[in-house]
């Protein structure tokens, strides 16, 4: 991992049309270094997917900016946008809605290869697709099946293979493993890490499974209601959580221990009435917390 920022986000905001001005993402700033995994965690509905979709330009940026490798991509159009999309891919949160039901799996995985002309002939295309399929733990007989003929976790892995097909530099992974069982989670996480080492890939890793996020991420940001309330090196955020919401999150992680679960006490988080006008303040090296 280098010190160079690959993705720089400044004052990013999104307001969905018809939501009477409510900011789904509210003025957030962060940067992701080249080769790094940046974890984004937070409450359901806090704006993680909205953020991820803006970064790959699937959703308009209401205000603020995103720079990729020094280039402002906030308003890219046409050819330039297409070229950016090859480099910046997304693994969608909903594996059901994001796969075209009329296409065979091999053609779904090859979508990016076709759009960006990454294979010189049919045979090369088939080879690339087979390699991708195997790397996510699916079987050759699956190539000719349709999405509805797969289990939830299998569909999620099709989405991962599709995102990696364009050999991107940056991938937004929107809950890529939450639909998977632990063993395949481990396989997919190991796969994502291996690809990262091999190609110096950069990830924005959205998840709510904190133990997995901690495991995979170099740095983490915790979001709450559209804002980043805490960010820092992964280990520090867990060992020394500063924001009460982060503490509440950590206290709620279920553990594979029935006896412990029966006795568990969670720390509830009750948000302060108004947290307007606050900022992120550096509490220790690289570790910031929202302070009003």
């Amino acid at each position, binding site marked *: 991992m280098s010190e160079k920022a690959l993705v720089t986000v400044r004052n990013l905001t999104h307001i969905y049309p018809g939501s009477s001005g409510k900011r789904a993402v509210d003025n957030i700033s962060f940067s992701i270094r080249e080769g790094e995994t940046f974890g984004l965690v937070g409450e*359901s509905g806090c704006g993680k*997917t909205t953020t991820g979709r803006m970064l790959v330009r699937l959703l308009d940026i209401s205000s603020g900016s995103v720079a990729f490798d020094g280039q402002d991509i906030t308003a890219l159009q046409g050819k330039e946008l297409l070229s950016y999309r090859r480099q910046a891919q997304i693994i969608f*949160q909903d594996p059901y809605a994001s796969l075209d039901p009329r296409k065979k799996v091999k053609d779904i995985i090859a979508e990016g290869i076709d759009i960006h002309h990454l294979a010189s002939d049919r045979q090369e295309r088939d080879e690339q697709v087979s390699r991708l399929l195997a790397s996510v733990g699916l079987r050759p007989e699956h190539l000719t099946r349709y999405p509805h003929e797969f289990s939830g976790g299998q569909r999620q892995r099709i989405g991962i293979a599709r995102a990696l097909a364009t050999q991107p530099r940056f991938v937004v992974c929107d809950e890529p493993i939450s639909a998977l*069982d632990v063993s395949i*989670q481990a396989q997919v996480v190991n796969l994502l890490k291996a690809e990262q080492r091999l190609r110096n890939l950069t990830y924005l890793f959205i998840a709510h499974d904190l133990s997995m996020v901690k495991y995979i991420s170099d740095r983490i940001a915790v979001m709450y209601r559209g804002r980043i309330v805490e960010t820092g090196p992964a280990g520090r955020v867990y060992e020394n959580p500063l924001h009460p919401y982060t503490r509440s999150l950590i206290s709620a992680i279920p553990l594979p*221990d*029935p006896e412990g679960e029966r006795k568990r006490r969670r720390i509830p*988080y009750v948000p302060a009435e108004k947290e307007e006008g606050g900022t992120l303040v550096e509490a220790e090296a690289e570790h910031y917390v929202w302070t009003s």
Partner: protein
Amino acid sequence: MAESVLDVRHLTVSFSTYAGRVQAVRDISFSLGRGETLALVGESGCGKSVTCRSIMGLLAKNAQVEGGEILFEGKNLLHLSNRAMREIRGGKIAMIFQDPMTSLDPTMKIGRQIAEAVRLHRPVTRAAAKLRAVELLEMVGIEEPEKRYHQYPHAFSGGQRQRIVIAIALAADPRVLIADEPTTALDVTMQAQILDLIKDIQKRTDTSVIFITHDLGVVANVADRVAVMYAGRIIEVGLSDEVFYDPRHPYTWGLLASMPTLAAKDETLYAIPGTPPTLIDPAPGDAFAPRNPWALEADRLAEPPLFPVSETHAAATWLLDARAPHVEPPENIALRAQAFRKKLSERSAAL
């Protein structure tokens, strides 16, 4: 165990596909007690959802039930007419589907979808159904429920959609609730709230729950009993304590070992080696054998039966056969087992 509400016996389901016949569920049996929560766990593609869809009578067109029965209130659900099944579905037996978007109508406001579920099985006025729908939205943690009542599914985040689907399933006060990965899209605090909600309703109405999840932490939190599936079969079943603290099947050992702990940051996570087996013409013997470091010669020849470990605990591995060599489980599992035995002996000493 309490009186059983639902009995699945020798259920066998396959799919015809271009590449051949997929044997997704092979001879599965379990029963579900009143007020009990049974967790179904196992690798992606092992047949959890297909098992539950069979109970609901909602299998894909290319599916074929090859055998078995599903007994509910004295009737075999597999023999009911479509009409009778529609009555039961969403009423006495409700299911939270793994894929929220396919169970929501994208063209209908979410409030109406919940209100209709309320009215489907209970004769209440429109106004009362609406009130109940708003209440349900609030219970599943959707803020500003009156306002959001009038929005369409696309305006909700992944986890919010999942919670709307939960509200619909709870609307009818079902006898049996089948929850297929109901909290996978939720952060842990919201997840905790939903689990508490389900437990609460269960306590009040004595609902029985089949809970599918791959999160063993969640299983530990909700389950009375656990059934572990592999390649279409149940390979270990027991009380939650038995499966977590004294697992006997090497696959269960592998599952427990692949959980990351908050303390660890190793370079690679433990992953069970190899890939799930093909379900088309599966090889003879134990389906897990090729990936099982403890596999015996017998595993390659014949499918192991479920060997009883206790009255409530059984596992399908030849390691439990009297002729098998003694095998020590991996260290982390042995430690769990030790702690469990200690607790048991303390308990019996106290009696």
